[in-house]
C-alpha cells in the first residue's frame, strides 16, 4: 500500500522531515507547504497529511484540516476541549480515516527504550512513573501539554488511572490559565504516577526526564544524564546530546502503520480516549480541589479501514 503524504511544516522544520522521508518505504513525500491553507489546491496529490508547524493548529486551521478528508498526523493537539477532539477522532474513524495526535513522548527514543524494557517484563510490574517536562515560555494550553505525558504514563502502565489529583500555579497575568501543573495518578494494583509540566523556564532548551520504578527493577531516562559540557569562561554550559531523527521517524512510521492496520489504529483510538478521560478528570480536579476517581475501564470501538 503506497501512501503519498503531504507535509505542512514551518520552514525550520521542513528539512528535518524531508531528511527522514526517504527512510520510509512505500510512503513518498508528495508535497510540502508551510500553511494549512496552502494545501487546498493540492489535495489530489496526497493521501495523508503531517502537520508540524511548531505550534498547535488554530481553530480555523483545524477546521480546514478536518475538511480535507485525509488521514492526519498532528504533532500537537489543537486548542479545543478534549470532548471536541474525541468527537473529531470519531468523525475520522467513521469515514475510514486516521487522526493521530502524537505529542511525541511515546516516540522519543529514550522513552521507547523505557517502555520496551517495561513491556519485556524485566522490571517486573511497573509501580511508579515519574516525568518532568519543563518548557521555556510558550503559548497554548498547559493542560494540553500534559497530553503527551499522560498518554506516556498510561502506555507504560498499560491502563487508565482510577485516581486523578491535580494542582497548579496560575499564570500571573491571566488567572484562567496555568503556568505550572502537577498531576498525581493512581492505578489499579497500587501503581502510581507523578507528572508535571511547566512553561516557566527562561528562553533556551527545555528539560525532560522519565523514570519508571518496577517491582524488579527501574529505568531512568533523564536529560540530566545526557549533558555535555562547553567551556567558554565562567561556569560551563550544559549541552544536551539530542536523539536525532529517530523520534520524528518513529512518529511517521507509526502513523503509516495505522493507515495500513486498523487494529493498530483501534489501539490508538482507545488510548486517545483514555488520555482525554484523564485530562478531563485533571480539569475537574483542578476545579473542585479534590481527587477525582474514575471507573476502571472503557468501551470497545470499531475501526474501519
Amino acid at each position: 500500500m503506497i501512501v503519498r503524504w503531504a507535509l505542512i511544516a514551518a520552514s525550520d522544520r521542513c528539512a528535518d522531515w524531508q531528511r527522514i522521508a526517504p527512510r520510509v518505504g512505500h510512503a513518498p513525500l508528495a508535497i510540502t507547504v508551510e500553511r494549512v491553507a496552502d494545501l487546498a489546491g493540492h489535495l489530489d496529490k496526497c493521501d495523508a497529511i503531517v502537520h508540524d508547524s511548531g505550534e498547535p493548529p488554530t481553530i480555523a486551521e483545524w477546521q480546514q484540516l478536518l475538511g480535507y478528508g485525509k488521514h492526519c498526523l498532528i504533532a500537537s493537539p489543537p486548542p479545543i476541549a478534549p470532548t471536541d477532539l474525541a468527537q473529531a477522532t470519531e468523525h475520522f474513524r467513521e469515514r475510514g480515516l486516521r487522526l493521530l495526535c502524537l505529542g511525541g513522548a511515546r516516540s522519543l527514543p529514550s522513552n521507547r527504550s523505557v517502555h520496551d524494557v517495561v513491556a519485556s517484563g524485566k522490571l517486573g510490574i511497573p509501580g511508579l512513573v515519574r516525568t518532568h517536562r519543563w518548557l521555556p515560555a510558550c503559548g497554548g494550553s498547559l493542560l494540553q501539554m500534559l497530553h503527551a505525558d499522560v498518554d506516556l504514563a498510561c502506555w507504560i502502565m498499560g491502563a487508565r488511572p482510577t485516581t486523578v489529583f491535580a494542582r497548579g500555579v496560575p499564570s500571573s497575568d491571566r488567572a484562567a490559565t496555568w503556568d505550572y501543573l502537577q498531576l498525581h495518578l493512581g492505578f489499579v494494583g497500587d501503581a502510581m504516577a507523578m507528572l508535571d509540566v511547566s512553561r516557566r523556564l527562561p528562553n533556551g532548551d527545555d528539560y525532560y526526564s522519565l523514570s519508571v520504578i518496577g517491582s524488579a527493577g527501574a529505568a531512568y531516562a533523564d536529560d540530566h544524564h545526557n549533558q555535555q559540557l562547553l567551556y567558554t569562561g565562567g561556569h560551563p554550559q550544559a549541552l544536551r546530546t539530542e536523539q536525532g531523527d529517530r523520534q520524528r521517524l518513529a512518529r511517521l512510521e507509526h502513523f503509516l502503520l495505522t493507515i495500513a492496520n486498523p487494529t493498530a489504529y483501534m489501539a490508538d483510538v482507545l488510548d486517545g480516549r483514555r488520555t482525554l478521560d484523564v485530562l478531563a478528570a485533571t480539569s475537574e480536579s483542578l476545579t473542585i480541589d479534590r481527587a477525582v476517581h474514575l471507573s476502571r475501564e472503557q468501551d470497545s470501538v470499531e475501526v474501519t479501514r
Partner: protein
Amino acid sequence: MNRDVYRCAVLSVAKHAYVPRGVAAHPRCELVVVADDASEPAWVHERNQRLADEFEVPYIRDVARALREFDVQIAVVSPAAERHCDLSIRAAQAGLHVVQDKPLSDRLSECDRLVAAIDQAGVKFLMWNRNLLPAVCQARDVIRSGALGPLRAIHCDFYFSKDAGPPRGSRRASDPPLDWLTHQIAAHADGSDGGLGHTPLGELQIEGIYPLAYLHMLTGGAKVERVFARTASFFHQLNVDNHVDDLATVTLEMNADSGRRPILGTLCIGRIGAASHPDIGEIKLHVLGENGALVVCESRPEVAVYYRQQPAAEFRHRRQAIDMDYLLMENFLAAIETGSPTIVDHHVGRAIAATVEAALASSRTGQPVRVDHL
C-alpha cells in the same frame, strides 16, 4: 556554657550505630557512657555493650544513674523507634541537649510530648538528617542566591535501592506472615534496620524525614499545609505482611494559607530493591523558580570504581567530600553555644511527622488531607 569538649551519653544503640559514631567524629564530642533501661531485652544490651566496648566506655543498665553520675551534656538517642521520644524526653528533663535518630516517633502524640519537654527544658534538639550533604548545600546556596527567583515547585525523588527481605509474593500460603521485629533485628547486620521496633513502619515514616527535611530547608521553611498521597506495599513481602508501605508518592501544598507565596511539591519515596540502582539509590531534587530551575543529584560529587570480582554489595560510585557528620555536629554545638536553632530541630521534626501522618491518612481516604500542625 561553652566547653572545649562535650561529654555525651549514648542512650541505647539498639539500631545501627551511625548516629553515635557521627557524633563521636567531631573532635569536641566525646562518648563517655552508654546507657539503657535494665528492662530491655538481651539483644539490646548486647548491642549497647558492643558500642561501649568499641569506645572503651562503661555500659550502664540504668539511664537515670548514667545521666546523674557521668557529667554528660549531650544525649545521643538511637533505640527502637517507639522509645525515641521517651528517652529524649528523659534526657531533656535531666538538662541534656539531645541528638536523636529518625524517625522522630511512630506516634504524633509522642512528638507533641517531646516538643513540650524540649521547650520546657530549654535545651537543644537535633534530628539526625542529611541536609548538609554537599549537593544539597549547593542547591540551598543556589536558591538563596536568588538565581531561580521565588520558588514555585520543588520535587524530591528518594529511592533507596536496598532490599527488605524476600520479594512480594514470595511467601507460600502455608507459611506464617513475616514478623517485623524479627526481620529488623536480623537486618542489623547490614545496617538496614532503620525501622527497628515492635511497631511496623513504612518507608514514608522511616525515611521520609530526609527528603522532607530537604524540602523544608530549600524552601526556607515553607509549611506543608495539605497533602495528597498514594502508598503501596509493592516490593517486599515484609511490608505486605505488616501492612506498611515501601513505595509512596505525596503531593505537597506549602504556604497556601500562611500569606507567603504558595509552593507546590512532590515526593516519591521507596525502598525499591537492590536491583534497581547500582548504588544507594536515585536521590534527586528538581526545583522550579520564577526565573530558573535546578536539577540536582544528591550523590555528587562521586568517583566511579569498577574492578574484576568486585563484590555485588560494594558501591560502584563512591561519594566524595562527605563532611555531613562533622557539619551536623558543628551546627548542633553552634546552636548550644549561640542559641540559634538546629538545622532540623524538634519543631521541624514534629512538622515532618505530622506531614507523614497526614500523607498516610490521605492514602487511606483517597483525598487530600490537611496537616495537623501545633
